[in-house]
């Protein structure tokens, strides 16, 4: 009987040892997984850093170009005042204005992203009609689209109620989406901007039949410094921050922004803003 009990005890002890070993093994595996996650995180951070380092010279180049133009134009105006005719003076002064506006816009974008990353980005909501903002932006871009031989239309689908939003910031989102749509449209293309109510939200779509967004680019589209390069005729320019800012603005309103394919050709940028 004693031997029998002893045998049972040995078996129980072995089982306990096996369980302990299994627990220990599982913990070790968890630790290994944890280590793997840590390594993956470090690698992802390093990759992001490397990407930012790669794009930094490009960003500086984008800032330097208008600065050089301003400096060159000012230099000519100072050194050659007497030799320049009225038309040349006007060309140079106008160029200073255009280049300084573009510079200011880029600096503004960098500041916006910096505020968004630091959690200090704020919007100033006022109660008003988003239809007025859409109408204004459509009128602003119509001549630009015409020059690029692209048709731009903003058909009214339904009446939208007034609500609270930041009109200047929503203009900025629309500016970005419409100018991108024009940039990535080919001659003869068309852009349609619509707005409608969608379950407590207003849903705005900017739809083009241009070159579209490659599947591989879609996850990167709203990331810092990303520049799509999906057509040989379209030169990439800018800070690569426009869509990051658009996303930040929409999210600050409590909405969402995303891209879909516009079958059979082109892309559809959609954003929603809560009606409150």
């Amino acid at each position: 009987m004693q031997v029998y009990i002893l045998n049972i005890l040995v078996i129980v002890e072995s089982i306990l040892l096996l369980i302990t070993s299994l627990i220990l093994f599982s913990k070790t595996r968890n630790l290994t997984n944890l280590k793997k996650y840590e390594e993956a995180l470090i690698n992802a951070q390093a990759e992001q850093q490397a990407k930012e380092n790669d794009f930094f010279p490009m960003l500086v180049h984008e800032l330097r170009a208008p600065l050089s133009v301003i400096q060159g134009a000012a230099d000519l105006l100072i050194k050659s005042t007497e030799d320049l005719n009225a038309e040349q003076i006007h060309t140079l002064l106008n160029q200073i204005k255009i280049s300084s506006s573009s510079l200011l816009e880029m600096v503004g974008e960098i500041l916006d992203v910096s505020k968004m990353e630091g959690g200090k980005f704020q919007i100033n909501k006022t109660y008003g009609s988003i239809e007025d903002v859409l109408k204004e932006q459509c009128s602003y871009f119509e001549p630009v689209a015409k020059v690029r031989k692209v048709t731009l239309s903003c058909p009214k689908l339904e009446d939208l109620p007034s609500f609270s939003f930041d009109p200047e910031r929503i203009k900025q989102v629309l500016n970005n989406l419409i100018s991108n749509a024009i940039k990535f449209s080919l001659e003869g293309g068309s852009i349609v901007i619509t707005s409608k109510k969608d379950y407590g939200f207003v849903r705005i779509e900017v739809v083009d039949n241009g070159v579209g967004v490659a599947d591989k680019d879609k996850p990167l589209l709203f990331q810092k410094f990303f520049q799509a390069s999906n057509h040989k005729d379209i030169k990439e320019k800018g800070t690569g921050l426009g869509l990051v800012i658009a996303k930040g603005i929409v999210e600050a309103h409590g909405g969402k922004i995303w891209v879909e394919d516009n079958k059979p050709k082109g892309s559809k940028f959609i954003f929603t803003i809560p009606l409150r």
Partner: protein
Amino acid sequence: MPKKILFIEDDEGFFNIFSVPLKMKGYDIVHVSDGSLAVEKVISEKPDLVLLDIVLPGTSGLDVLKELREREETKLTKIVMLTNFGSDDNIARAMEYGASDYLMKYNIVPSELPSKIAGFLGETQESVVKVTES
């Protein structure tokens, strides 16, 4: 007869600040902003000198240069690269393809560009001014 310069540049700002002093010195400036139209324009305009940017829509400046050098009618045309991109690789390729020189936009004061161009064309500044006055 003023000397003709074909300026292949898509940035309106750079085109304006570099073309104004050249026009002031009497050069006839023809502007092309799309790389894919550049070769055709050089053939039809027969310029005395081509100012060529590298980053262009359509076809890159280096490809334009290569094609111009391969064509019988343009293989001897003076071509000066005027660009922002001064990487060793770009400079080496441009010189290998037969560029007359490689100028960096940031290093050139616009008012000094005409004297450089006059040098490439074997002119003195005075002779350029005389062309303007005639």
